[in-house]
């Protein structure tokens, strides 16, 4: 059972999860309600159909119909150009358009709104140019030319961000699960008494329990990195030995934590539940999907106690940005203290009595 778990699961997860965990937004489905049908309104709708970001889902003339499309999930947003749009523009020098968003996913709605506003502003400029010619519009207004550049990842490939995260998820989950279920399993099976009567010392017992999982997790990490390189061509700018040293220390902390849970639990079920509880919190707070900076302050404070967040940050820094030992020194020292504390606790908590 062990071998497939170690090699097949990372492969499948890297294949599926990395592709699934994608927050790039494309193909926002838009339903267009153009009640004006003038050349200006056509210019706007044309811009939307040409945009890569939006996919025109359908045209209709009734707002009710369009709203129903949002309700049943066929469209993500509606662009409504009311009747008399062009006339208002000529007479009153301004005209209104309305955008409706399905805002259950607030982030997507917010970004779609920003893009839509950009497109409409572009169309607006074109209309002005068409009517007034080039010279007049440029005269009064100053403009700031904004040049964005994206370091380390100019193609904005979200996958290279996710591969290290999924690797952390994997080694943490599998390593901790194995460690957590271990001692308690011996207890449940009644083997623990037999170990307890041997002259083995506490530290030896804990080391013996820890070492195999530690090696398994590191092998898995290596295997996962290899797959990441082969399939996704993730960059490895920093030093791999450094990465493995950090990973080793991190795993000691997590596995020690698992053994501690295992030690105090009575049944495997109980142990597993406690582990799930911690691991979910640890992983969700680690910045795996969402930046840790946008969390509320109290959560960021709690995060200082979260070993996963340190490793998540370090692995991304080393692989993607080529950070060296000096750059990660602070996180490194904290992780080291963490694992020493946890291992010491695990040894002390282990009692040779049942």
């Amino acid at each position: 059972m062990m071998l497939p778990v170690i090699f097949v699961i990372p492969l499948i997860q890297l294949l599926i999860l990395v592709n699934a965990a994608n927050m790039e937004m494309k193909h926002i489905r838009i339903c267009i309600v153009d009640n004006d049908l003038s050349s200006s309104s056509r210019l706007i709708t044309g811009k939307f159909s040409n945009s890569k970001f939006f996919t025109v889902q359908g045209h209709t003339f009734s707002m009710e119909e369009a709203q129903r499309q949002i309700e049943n999930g066929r469209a993500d947003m509606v662009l409504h150009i009311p009747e008399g749009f062009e006339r208002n523009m000529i007479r009153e020098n301004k005209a209104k358009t309305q955008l409706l968003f399905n805002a259950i996913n607030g982030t997507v709605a917010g970004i779609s709104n920003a893009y839509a506003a950009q497109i409409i502003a572009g169309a607006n400029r074109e209309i002005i140019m068409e009517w007034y010619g080039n010279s007049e519009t440029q005269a009064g207004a100053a403009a700031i030319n904004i040049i964005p550049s994206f370091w380390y990842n100019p193609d904005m490939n979200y996958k290279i961000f996710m591969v290290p995260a999924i690797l952390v998820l994997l080694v943490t989950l599998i390593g901790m699960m194995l460690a957590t279920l271990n001692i308690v399993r011996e207890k449940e099976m009644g083997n623990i008494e037999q170990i307890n009567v041997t002259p083995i010392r506490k530290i030896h017992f804990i080391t013996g329990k820890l070492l195999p999982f530690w090696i398994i997790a590191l092998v898995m990490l290596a295997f996962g990195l290899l797959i990441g390189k082969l399939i996704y061509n993730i960059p490895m700018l920093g030093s791999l030995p450094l990465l493995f040293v950090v990973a080793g220390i991190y795993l000691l902390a997590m596995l020690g934590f698992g053994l501690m849970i295992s030690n105090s639990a009575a049944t495997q079920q109980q142990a597993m539940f406690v582990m799930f509880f911690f691991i979910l919190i640890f992983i969700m707070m680690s910045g795996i999907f969402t930046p840790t900076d946008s969390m509320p302050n109290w959560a960021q404070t709690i995060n200082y106690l979260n070993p996963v967040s340190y490793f998540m940050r370090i692995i991304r820094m080393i692989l993607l940005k080529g950070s060296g030992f000096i750059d990660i020194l602070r996180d490194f020292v904290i992780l080291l203290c963490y694992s020493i504390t946890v291992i010491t606790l695990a040894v002390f908590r282990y009692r040779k009595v049942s």
Partner: protein
Amino acid sequence: MFGIPVAQMLLFGYIITTEVKDARIAILDHSKDETTRKIIDKLASSGYFIIAKYLSHEQEIADCFRQGTVKEVVVFEPDFARKLQNEKMASVHLIADASDANSANLVVNYTGAVINDFIAKENKSSAMPLQIITEPRMLYNPELKGVYMFVPGTMAMILVLICALLTSVSIVREKELGTMEVLLVSPLKPLQIVLGKVTPYIFLSFVNVITILLLSNFVFGLPVRGSITLLLAESFLFISLALSLGILISSSTSSQQMAMVASMLGLMLPSILLSGFIFPIDNMPGWIQWICYINPTTYFIVILKNIMLKGLGFMSVWKETAILAGITMFLLVVSTKKFKVRLD
């Protein structure tokens, strides 16, 4: 077991936000004039950014990113204000740490918006002719809160966790400890054994559903716009589905560890990642979308969103309900078959 849903709700409600807030940026101002100072003030007071550092050299940018202290560096070109005045055009360079492509994109967009807003206000005196005014309206979630997205997903996830995982483990446990044989030779029918195992978890899940709904209502102000009865009925359907999945897993595995690995990797992760809970399904490659459509959690989340957030009735979710019911029937038949085989 009651602590977990509560903790998760609070976690997801507060932690998982993708909005830009207090993003740490650095400024490299080659110009240091009135205008750039105004723009910097605007950035600092926008609430989106914290200005963590002022740099004086291009070389420092790479160091900042390598240490991970800032996400974006805003570089103003020399003579910024003068160029803006004389040539009507000045450049600002936004360098983002795109190792996290998404937040880099967001941060750059937000910075651009703040700067554009600034210049638009400066230009106000010379008003643009022929303005198109856009009025965006955010349906269902006008404040764009993250919780709206996460409550349905969390609910589905907790139900899968409790029902499928706990059932499968508790049945396999009997096998492992050898007590299953005792149960099987007793005059109880297999169905009765399974029912006995499963009933406590049904209750537990129901209590959890109600806890989550209350929490989301009172702590996060999330409304239940549709019918609560319908919501509970659909939850019951999903609970039975998860339970039958659990029974199926338990009858195909022989050790608790195996059952846990199977339910965790086979159920937990897909229900988080392949269900539209966090990541929109539309963005995934085609073959993964197919997996999502096999995943029952996907349908349950759609149902929850339609009923809770959009306030729609049964007519809007009958298709998803039918699919869930179909999967439940299928799983029940398969798992009872498997269970009987073991009896022989």
